[in-house]
């Protein structure tokens, strides 16, 4: 979750031109320093883009999430508790996940985003992968897996998909997810259990 830029800044020699910390940049940005917010944007936009890419394939959608996340962050900056060194990174990540969740919900509501059917070929591939314990590594298999994954994941609810990406792709702990969503640990566990059950049901339908 934490951005590496802060640790790099700490590792740099003391006599070098030390980059300002996020805390300092946030303070300056709140005081209407345009360059400070631009620096924060440049520092964290890659992380936000990566989070958006966990959910969306099209560049426009990823850009939309990045823009939306930083706009929300800018407008909410005066309310942000600027206390810990890494808190801005966690905060912007949380905003990005929320923006992804909102975009997933919007997509789900659109009639043109109706889930497309899984072909017989893809279903056969899925069965083969189940027998061989996981998806293959070659380029063709990766392309099939990507298309199939998109089709299957589109059948999950936005909540389930968000939670599974946080757990299995981002590798966040239950405690981190709880802190991020303001949920208790038991609630995260229950929701994760339900999300896995939903994904199993989706997979079983095509096996």
């Amino acid at each position, binding site marked *: 979750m934490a951005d590496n830029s802060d640790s790099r800044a700490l590792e740099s020699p003391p006599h070098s031109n030390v980059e300002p910390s996020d805390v300092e940049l946030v303070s300056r940005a709140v005081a209407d320093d345009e360059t400070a917010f*631009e620096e924060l*944007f*440049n520092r964290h*936009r*890659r992380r936000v*883009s*990566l989070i*958006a*890419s*966990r*959910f*969306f*394939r*099209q*560049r426009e959608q*990823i*850009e939309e999430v*990045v*823009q939306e996340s*930083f*706009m929300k962050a*800018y*407008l909410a900056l005066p309310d942000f508790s600027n206390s810990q060194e890494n808190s801005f990174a966690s905060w912007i990540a949380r905003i990005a996940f929320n923006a992804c969740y909102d975009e997933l919900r919007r997509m789900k509501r659109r009639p043109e985003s109706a889930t497309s059917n899984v072909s017989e070929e893809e279903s056969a591939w*899925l069965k083969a*992968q*189940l027998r061989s*314990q*996981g*998806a293959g590594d070659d380029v063709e298999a*990766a392309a099939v*897996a*990507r298309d*199939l*994954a*998109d089709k*299957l*994941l589109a059948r999950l609810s936005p909540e389930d998909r968000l939670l*599974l*990406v946080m757990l*299995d*792709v981002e590798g966040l702990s239950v405690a981190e997810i709880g802190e991020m969503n303001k949920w208790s640990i038991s609630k995260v*566990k229950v929701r994760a*259990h339900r999300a*896995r059950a939903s*994904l*199993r049901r989706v*997979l*079983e339908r095509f096996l």
Partner: protein
Amino acid sequence: MAGHKKTDPMTDEANAQLDQLGRALLLHASASNEAEAEAVAASPFAYTRLRARITAEHERRAGGETWLTLLGVVWRSVPAMGLVAVFAFILFWTSSFGTTSPGVLSDEALMDARDAGIENVVFADRRTLSSDDVLATILQGDERENSR
């Protein structure tokens, strides 16, 4: 995850396999988009677009605030306007009640007034007098004088 319930080992194994497959698919779906993410992160005018968007959002919120302020003012003025309307009605009602009576304003009462000048003015306001009316009025006046 399964809690304390007794579960079928075959089912557990099948679930574990499905979980593993699901995880692999999630990773495939997520990892394959990293090139797009890098391209977005390296986009040259991203900050300029962000600034434009922030400015537009500020303007949108300012417009919304103006309407809200106006609505607030109107909402707050409703009781005051109601109070003024009630007060004006009461004022009108009491003034019309206290100074005049309905009989005074009627045409019949004016007709009976002793001052002929008043009659003339009132009639002049109402309609054009015919020659007969004028003659009748004069004769009536003369009769009154004679009777005294």
